């Protein structure tokens, strides 16, 4: 069992948990992820490592409540334990020689983009961070991100924070303004990553995306997470999750992300019914 030592509610649907996992904390690097299982009947779900503390022996993940598992996860508090917590999985990101970079986070993707920005800054790169949210109520980890970059731009779809527009608009503006990025990192919903790649392709700027396909084991033994990259089948859990965004077949990835849509709905309804019974 893996103890939750800290929990922080970041907004209505996003929370942070810091979990005791000394072996993983010793090895974790930005770009890697963990797989957890809440309880005995739970499913295995991947979450990116948002932070780690090698001395304390803890690993932090940030999650958004989107279905049955994240709902149960969100019911846990500091002092509670997770059934399983395995990692660090995936290939760590490599950023040698990057001078100026735009790190883009969409929604919860911001939490995944944060450790990358932090690492790049620590390596001496100039980091612009562009974070996008639907509205200002959904903005998360603004202070952390501000520390992790040189310039932070927070966009909202509805302009409720006074900065209306998609991340791609800000990115285009900065590129056209002569920002001179040698790398763009985009992490967020598939449609957002696709849009960023479509934009940067025209400018010939190398773009790395962090893929988030369905996973089960996370160790390369099932291929549930396969993505097509440059015409080849890759397993995101062992070959990624970072890939060259200009090589990724996003349309196929978007279709695959919907494979269990009906079952996800059923699972959530099942959980709601059980709770209804408990409350009765």
């Amino acid at each position, binding site marked *: 069992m893996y103890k939750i030592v800290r929990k922080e509610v970041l907004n209505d649907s996003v929370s942070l948990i810091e979990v005791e996992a000394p072996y993983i904390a010793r090895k974790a690097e930005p770009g890697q992820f963990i797989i957890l299982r809440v309880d005995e009947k739970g499913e295995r779900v991947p979450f990116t490592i948002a932070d780690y503390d090698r001395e304390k022996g803890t690993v932090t993940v940030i999650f958004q409540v989107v279905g049955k598992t994240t709902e149960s996860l969100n019911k846990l508090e500091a002092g509670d334990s997770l059934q399983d917590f395995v990692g660090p999985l995936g290939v760590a990101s490599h950023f040698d020689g990057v001078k100026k970079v735009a790190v883009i986070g969409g929604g919860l993707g911001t939490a995944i983009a944060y450790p990358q920005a932090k690492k790049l800054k620590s390596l001496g790169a100039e980091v612009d961070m562009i974070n996008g949210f639907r509205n200002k109520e959904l903005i998360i980890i603004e202070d952390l991100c501000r520390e992790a970059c040189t310039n932070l731009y927070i966009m909202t779809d509805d302009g409720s924070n006074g900065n209306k527009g998609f991340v791609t608009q800000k990115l285009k503006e900065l590129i056209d303004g002569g920002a001179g990025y040698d790398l763009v990192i985009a992490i967020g919903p598939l449609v957002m990553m696709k849009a960023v790649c479509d934009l940067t392709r025209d400018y010939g700027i190398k773009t790395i995306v962090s893929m988030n396909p369905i996973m089960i084991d996370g160790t390369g033994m099932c291929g549930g997470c396969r993505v097509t990259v440059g015409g080849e089948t890759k397993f995101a859990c062992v070959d990624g999750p970072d890939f060259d965004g200009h090589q990724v*077949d996003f349309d196929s990835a978007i279709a695959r992300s919907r494979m269990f849509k009906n079952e996800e709905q059923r699972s959530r309804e099942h959980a709601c019914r059980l709770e209804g019974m408990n409350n009765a």
Partner: protein
Amino acid sequence: MPNMSLEKVRMPEQQPDVRNKNFEEVTLGYTEEMAVEEAKRCLNCKHKPCIKGCPVMVKIPEFIALTAEGKFKEAYEKIQETSSLPAVCGRVCPQETQCEKYCVRGIKGEPVAIGRLERFVADWYMKNIASKPEKPEQNGMKVAVVGAGPAGLTCAGDLARLGYDVTVFEAFHTPGGVLVYGIPEFRLPKAIVAAEVDKLKELGVKIMTNMVIGKVLSVDELLNEEGFDAVFIGTGAGLPSFMKIEGESLNGVYSANEFLTRINLMKAYKFPEYDTPVYVGKNVVVVGGGNVAMDAARSAKRLGAENVYIVYRRSEEEMPARAEEIHHAKEEAIEFKLLNNPVKINGDENGWVSSVTCIKMELGEPDASGRRRPVPVEGSEFDIEADVVVVAIGQTPNPLIKNTTPDLETNKWGCIVAKEETGATSKTGVYAGGDAVTGAATVILAMGAGKTAAASIDEYLKSKNK
């Protein structure tokens, strides 16, 4: 008096049309009376040919003689002298090509049902005897076992009995390897695997789950930092092969590993009581002819698929699956489309599988494996309607250990190179066995390799510490 019946005592089983709708065990096992009766068919021959067919050399005539006398506890202890997982082996070993192949009674009539008797004795012991094994005296040396499949568990059990402090590192949340994620409940109940693992824990074996060696710790770190005196690698062959044909990334296409892991390990057959989903649809095409293909097809049927097809490029004679499993699959209304090979998976506008285009094959000259090579019949393409495709054409070893242990020699298939007689690898103090060395093979061969390596590790550490 020996029982001179030419046939094995029949083992009761669930009716095909009942069992293809549930995940309960198909075969129900012998009663005490049946076991005694079958045991009496053994002639207790002097030269004991059956033993040489068993990779872990169970003392077969001796345990059967005890069974015939109704001394089931003693029979179990006799098996335990050489085998760590009898309840598993009695169920999943291909006895027809191992112990039973050499049985004298098989020359005329059916061989003695050694597997069924082993299974009976192990089940009987688990049900009736609660005693805990005595913990062997510790010799102060530590061995790490990577992978809790049949090879690793056997190696761990043998080393623990010799007094070593053994820790097994397992990547999944449950130990057992293919016994828990691959072989379905209806062939091997998971409670049996768990009970066998508990026996090892009682011997003092420590099992650390959720530990992916190669990620969280490397083999070198196990040896140099974590204080282990030797390492055994039993990581299996878990990397699925795909066909590399058009349409394999469509929704509804699974590797057999994914399909079976969802169902067996994650218990998706109990969804939504368990959280992991699995989609099966109405028409399922399973590609391949091994035990994994049979398991996937029979699981799909149990999950409510109306039509389940096995598509295999050779004929039944070349199928690597056990005869008994092919027979069970046929009884359960799995349709066999032999001498056919998929060439393309077709999808609908939403990215879901709609059909599989296959081509007919004919058998040509024998290939390197000695099996006749299948050759496509030009212009014979046809479509099978399908919502789900399960690819069960084989697995290779996962490269994780290889990639993080630079001085460990592997061959061109990614298999670890290890001496057959000892399990020794190119790296001092590191041994390997099972599918990680041979590529996908059988449970019992993996156990045999685990056993051999345990003996070599013992020898190595004793001579090192002299």
